[in-house]
C-alpha cells in the first residue's frame, strides 16, 4: 500500500455546472478546481447548506467521484445526493449556475495496492459513488476488478451503468428483487472473491453492509477497505464527533476520527460490535 502526501483541503466557491436526476438520486457536477486537484478516490467534500441566514450550521458531506482534474470538464467534481433532511433538500433545490461553498478534498483515500492485484468492489446505494473512480485507478494499474452494487430496491441503485461501462460487467442485487438478483451484496461476494482470486475487497455503503463485507473478506483471509459514514460536525478533524472504535497495529483500540483518519478503514480493525459504546478496554476509557 502506498501513502502519498496529499495537498491539503481547500475552501472554495464552486459553480454548479450540471444537475442530473438518477433514480432516487441527483448527480451534481460542480466547477471546483481546488477540490478536484488533490482528489483521490474515497475522499469527500463538505458543503455548506441553507445559504445566508440559514439555521443549519453544519456542512453536509458527500463522497466524490467523477473528478476531472484535466480534460473536457477540467476542474469539476461530481457527487450524488439522496434526499434526507433539510440540508440535502436544500441542495436538491439548487440549479445550474448556482454556487456552492465547498471544503475538500477531505479524508484518507482508499489505499492502493503497490502492484496490480485482483479486487472486488462492493457498493450499497449511493455508496457505489466513490468506487467508480477507484475502479478506474485499479484498472489503470492493471488489476482485475469485479463490482457488486446493491440497494434496497431498484430506484436506490446507483452507478450500475457507469460501473458496467468502466469494468465491462457488474453484479446487481436488490433486497426486493426489483433489479438484479434478490438479496444482499454479500450473497454473490464469496463467489466473486473466489472466481477472481481477489486479494482485496473495497466497499462503501451502510454500516451493516460494511460489517458483513468485512466478515466475508475475513473468512477469505483477505483485507476489506471500507469507507464509513459517521455523523460529522466539522469534517476537518477539530471537533471529535465522528469517532469509531478502531484497533491499531499493536492491538490497542482507540476512538479514531473518521473524517481525517478515515472515512476509509480496514474493516478488520473496526470494532463493529462496539460502535455506539465505550468498550472497557478502549484506550483512555479509564480516564473518563
Amino acid at each position, binding site marked *: 500500500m502506498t501513502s502519498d502526501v496529499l495537498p*491539503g*483541503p*481547500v*475552501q472554495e466557491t464552486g459553480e454548479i455546472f450540471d444537475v442530473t436526476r438518477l433514480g432516487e438520486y441527483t448527480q451534481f457536477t460542480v466547477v471546483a478546481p481546488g477540490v478536484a486537484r488533490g482528489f483521490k478516490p474515497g475522499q469527500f467534500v463538505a458543503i*455548506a447548506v441553507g445559504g445566508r441566514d440559514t*439555521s*443549519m*450550521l*453544519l*456542512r453536509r458531506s458527500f463522497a466524490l467521484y467523477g473528478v476531472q482534474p484535466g480534460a473536457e470538464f477540467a476542474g469539476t467534481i461530481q457527487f450524488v445526493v439522496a434526499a434526507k433532511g433539510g440540508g440535502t433538500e436544500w441542495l436538491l433545490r439548487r440549479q445550474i449556475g448556482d454556487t456552492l*461553498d465547498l*471544503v475538500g478534498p477531505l479524508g484518507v483515500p482508499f489505499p492502493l495496492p503497490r502492484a496490480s492485484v485482483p479486487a472486488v468492489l462492493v457498493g450499497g446505494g449511493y455508496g457505489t459513488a466513490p468506487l467508480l473512480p477507484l475502479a478506474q485507478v485499479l484498472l489503470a494499474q492493471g488489476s482485475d476488478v469485479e463490482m457488486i452494487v446493491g440497494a434496497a430496491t431498484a430506484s436506490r441503485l446507483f452507478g450500475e451503468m457507469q460501473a458496467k461501462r468502466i469494468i465491462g460487467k457488474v453484479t446487481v442485487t436488490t433486497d426486493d428483487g426489483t433489479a438484479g438478483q434478490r438479496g444482499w451484496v454479500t450473497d454473490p461476494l464469496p463467489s466473486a472473491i473466489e472466481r477472481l482470486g481477489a486479494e482485496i475487497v473495497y466497499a462503501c455503503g451502510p454500516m451493516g453492509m460494511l460489517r458483513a463485507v468485512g466478515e466475508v473478506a475475513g473468512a477469505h483471509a483477505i483485507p476489506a477497505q471500507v469507507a464509513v459514514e*459517521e*455523523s460529522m*460536525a*466539522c*469534517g*476537518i*478533524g*477539530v*471537533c*471529535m*464527533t*465522528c*469517532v*469509531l472504535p478502531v484497533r491499531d497495529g499493536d492491538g490497542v483500540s*482507540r*476512538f479514531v476520527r473518521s473524517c*481525517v483518519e478515515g472515512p476509509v478503514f480496514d474493516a478488520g480493525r473496526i470494532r463493529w460490535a462496539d*460502535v*455506539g*459504546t*465505550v468498550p472497557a478496554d*478502549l*484506550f*483512555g*476509557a*479509564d*480516564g*473518563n
Partner: protein
Amino acid sequence: MGTPTVDISTSLASFELPNPVLTASGCAAAGRELSPFFDVAELGGIVTKSIMMKPRSGRSTPRMAETPSGMLNSIGLQGPGVDSFIEHDLKWLHESGARTVVSIAGHNTDEFVALARRLYDQPMDLLEVNISCPNVENRGQVFACDAIAATRVISAVRRAANPNVPIFAKLTPDVTDIGYIARAVAEAGADGISLINTLLGLVIDLDTLRPALGGVTGGLSGPAIRPVALRCVWQVHQAVPHLPLLGMGGIKTGKDALQFILAGASAVSVGTAVFHDPTAPIRIIAELSDELAARGFSSLRDAIGFAHLSSEQQAAYFAAQTAVPVGR
C-alpha cells in the same frame, strides 16, 4: 472599506495579543488541522482542547446533533493526556509560532493542580481553567456551578501554575447567578474569565425515540446561544469590571465579535463557527477591524465595555477623537 486603520491589539491580563480573535477550546483541536486553511500564528491565539492528566476516550457516539442555529455535542473531553499533548501538540504550536492558550480540565482539584504543575515550564501564553466540567468529588456537579468548588480549584491552580502565566477561569452559563461565580473566582485569584461554555441541552431522536446523543445530554453552542453569552459577558463585566474577559458563544462575524467587545470582552474566541467555515477566525479579525473603523473607534481597547457607557459618555468619546468617524 477604505477606512482608517484601527489599533486592534489587546491584552488578557499580562498576555499581549496583536489582535483579539482566538479559537475556542475544543473547536480547533490543537491548531494543526486549521493550518491548511490559514497560518495559525496570525490569530490572536489558539486555545487548545481541554486536556486532562490521563488519556481519555470520551463519550460514546452519537456525539452531536444539529439544532436550530446551533449544535449539541457530547464529546466528553476525549484527549491524549497531558504528556502526549506536551510532546506533540504544544510542541507543534510552539514551532508554528502560534500564541497558545492551554485549556485544562480535571476530575477534582488535585488533577487541576497536577496539570498546572506539569505545564509549569511549557511554552504558553495563558492557562484557561475549564471548570465547566463535572466534579467527581461532588456527585458530578460542575465546578463552575458551585462558588466554593470553583474557588478551591482556581486558588489552587493560581498557586501551582507559573506566576508569569495568567490564568482564566472558564465559566458555564448554567447557573442562577453568574456574577456571583465571577466574583468568587476573581477573589480566588483568577486573572481573567473566559465565558461562556456551552448550555446543557437535549434532543430526542424521533427514529430511535431515545435521546439523540450517546451521552443523553450535551452542550449547546453556536449562534443560538449568542444572546445568552452576551448577557453573561455584560453581567460579569459589571460584577468584576477590573478583570479582562475572553468572550465567546455563537460568534460568526466581525459584527458578532464587536457586540462582545462592546459588552465588555477584551478578546473573543470563535468556536462552532469554525465547523461551518474553517477560515472564520482569520476572516473575523479583518471584519472586526472594519466595523470598529466604520464606527469611529481609533482602537479596539477603547471599544471594550463601551456599551456600558451612557449616551453622553459615548458622545464625549467620539467628540474627542481626531479621526473623522466614517459612517456615523
